[in-house]
Each structure stands twice: as C-alpha cells, then as structure tokens.
C-alpha cells in the first residue's frame, strides 16, 4: 500500500466535526504543516485532543484562532490567551484533564483497556462524576479510555512503510496517539528507505501509520 500522500490528499481524509488527536507539547512535536493545511481548508467544528492549546499562532493554537475548534480536550491552556478567551466567551468548549491521566487515557484507548485506576485528581473537581474504586485500602479514580477519528503526528524520521522515530522531547504524546485513532497521519521531517531504521529504535511501528505527508526538515 502506498502510504505517502500529498497535502491535498491529506485534507481529503478530514471531515467537519471529526475528533483529532494532535501530537506535541507546547507546540514542540506538533505537525505544523498539517495544521497549516487545515487552517487553509474549509474543515470546521473539530474536537481537538492535545496536551495543551499551543500558542495563538502556533500548533493547535492556529486552529483555535481560526475558529475551527468546537471542543478542546487538554491539560493546559495557559500559554494561549486566545483559548482562554474563547472558553470564557463560550465559543469553544474546554475539557481540562490532568496530563498523566490524559496520556494514559489515550494509551488505554489504543491498548484495548476499559480504563485504569489513578490516584491523580482524588478529592479535586477532576473527581466529579467519576467512579471511586478502592484497591487494597487505597482509593483511586476510574478513568476511561480515549480514542479519536484521526491522529496528526510529527515524525523525525519515517520510513516508507511508516515506521517512525521521534526527536528528543518532540516525542511526548505522539506515540500514544498513534495507537488510539482510526486514521493515523504522520508529518515526516524526513522520509527514509525501509530498512534504514534500526528495529530496536523504532518507536511507532508501521502498522499504526496509515499515511505519511512529507513536511519540512
């Protein structure tokens, strides 16, 4: 199967109202080229799942500023005043989730688990509406798995089959998101030949990657 597609073919995979997981942490590890294509497109009413709200002019912040985000699920929006403004105005719904819980929810979604028990959030408003389960005398919150329609990731080196490695702290949420979405699209800084990556060092196996879009180095 040919996985490498161009930017216009990329946009054809998206639909209004989709849920999209976007890799990156404070825009580090976010596929900016894919984001830019969505900004230029007519796609709207998106649910975005990302560690944070990016910056007003970078990362998922660009989607927020362009008014394309109906709902944001993130752990932090503090560096993007535009996100806070839209949240207060009520023009964008924001669901705040502890970072460790968010990434574990995504991992659970990808790994076929029905959820997990975490001590994080106990006794806080994060607990609201959630089941508390006691295991050997300790209390935990039951957190549920999270999946989405599309994952948009930033790969550092991606082979033609889709095997992906990440660079330094650009890795963050990317590998988990690769497992938890129907369609996984990697923006590749560099596309390499099959066999160029050491099998011990590949972080995201090719079976998770549906499409590769060549980005900037």
């Amino acid at each position: 199967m040919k996985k490498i597609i161009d930017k216009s073919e990329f946009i054809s995979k998206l639909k209004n109202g989709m849920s999209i997981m976007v890799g990156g942490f404070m825009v580090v590890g976010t596929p900016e080229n894919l984001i830019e294509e969505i900004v230029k497109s007519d796609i709207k009413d998106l649910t975005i799942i990302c560690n944070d709200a990016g910056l007003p002019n970078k990362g998922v912040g660009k989607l927020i500023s362009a008014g394309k985000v109906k709902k944001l699920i993130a752990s932090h929006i503090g560096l993007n005043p535009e996100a806070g403004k839209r949240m207060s105005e009520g023009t964008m719904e924001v669901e705040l989730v502890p970072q460790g819980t968010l990434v574990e929810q995504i991992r659970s979604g990808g790994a076929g688990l029905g959820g997990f028990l975490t001590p994080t959030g106990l006794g806080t408003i994060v607990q609201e509406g959630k089941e508390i389960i006691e295991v050997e005398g300790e209390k935990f919150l039951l957190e549920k798995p999270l999946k989405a329609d599309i994952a948009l990731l930033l790969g550092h080196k991606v082979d033609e089959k889709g095997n992906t490695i990440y660079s330094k702290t650009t890795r963050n949420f990317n590998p988990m998101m690769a497992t938890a979405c129907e369609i996984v699209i990697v923006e590749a800084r560099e596309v390499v030949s099959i066999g160029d990556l050491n099998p011990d060092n590949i972080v995201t196996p090719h079976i998770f990657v549906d499409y590769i879009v060549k980005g900037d180095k």
Partner: protein
Amino acid sequence: MNIKEFIAKRVAQELKDGNVVNLGIGLPTMVASFVTDDKDITFQSENGMLGLGPAPKEGEEDFDLTNAGGMPITMSTDGVCFDSATSFGIIRGGHVDITVLGSLQVDEKGNISNWIIPGKMVPGMGGAMDLVVGAKKVIVAMTHTAKGKMKILKKCTLPFTAVNQVNMIVTELGVMEITPEGILLTEIAPDTTVEQVQEVTEAKLIISDNLKTMNV
C-alpha cells in the same frame, strides 16, 4: 539576591545526592542553578526527559529539546528522552523524589490549590496534579503572600490540585513542614520574628523547639 533567588537557593539545599527532581515553571526552575556540584541530581521534565543540563547559549538552542514550559534546554551526558506515558509512569509511580512547584494557596492539611481561579484564570492543571500526588516529597516554593493576600491558609478557598500531599513550604520568610498537627515552622528568615511570619499566615503556625535561621 532577590526574594525569588533566596527561596530557590533554600529549596536547593533540600535536594540530596542521587535525587530525581521535577521543577515547576517559574521560581522552581531557578532551583537548578543553586545546586552545588557535590550533589548528583537528575532533573526530570514531565514533557519527556531526564537529565537537564545548563541553559543553552543564545543562538545554540535546540528547539527539539525543551522543558515543560516549551523553553529550549540542554541535556546532561546521561540524559534520556521518552514519551509522555513513560514520563507520567515515572511521576505517578513514585520515581520522582522531590517535586518543587509554586502555588496560589496551601493549607495546614497539606492541600494545594494552584491550577485555577474560577471565572478569572483557568490555565489548567497540566502535570501538576500527577506530580503532587506521585512525587515522594512535595515542596511548595513561593512568596509568602501575593499582593498582600495570604496564601498559607487554614483551608484553601480555591479548587484543590491535590489533597494532603504537600510536605514542605519554602518562602522568603521561612521553611515550614506540614505535620499531622498542622504547619510547623522549622526555619525563619534572618532578621524576621515569628510574630511577623504568623501575621501573614492564616494558618496557626506551630513553632519548632529547634527553630533555626535560614542559612541561604
């Protein structure tokens, strides 16, 4: 040395050789520069790395290597990068010895509120809830008051970040430990009286029999 540096330098004394430490954004980040060379401290950054090195020189930043504030950093030679699930496994699993973070409020039960001022400021909790619950020791490093308002309270009025998790508070006025009996003042800033500290602390302070002067 300004107030923030004073606090950061005192916190640095709490870090023991071999510790794994996570520093929050802002004042806590400054702690790293006050760690003495005789200690081997591993700094963890929740966005996915271990082994923070010295700040990068201007023009030599690597934008693939950042801290949890998105700022470029460097890595020590023993550094390691990993994904966010691994990072929070480290944090929640008790593999971080000390987390240092700022706060809006702390109370005498060790409750901490530092992620939201409803209707006003909603930055989100980021990794703070996991860090405070997971780290073996939680040190709050902050100015004793904010714009004249007290921050060390009988009971936090803002939504909690976590319940019963804070172990120590370091401010420009003193060092306090959270004990089952309440907040124990163990050290006091030079040229400061216990009364002066109590005056800006809503919670009733227990004064250590062994009260020392902060040696910063």
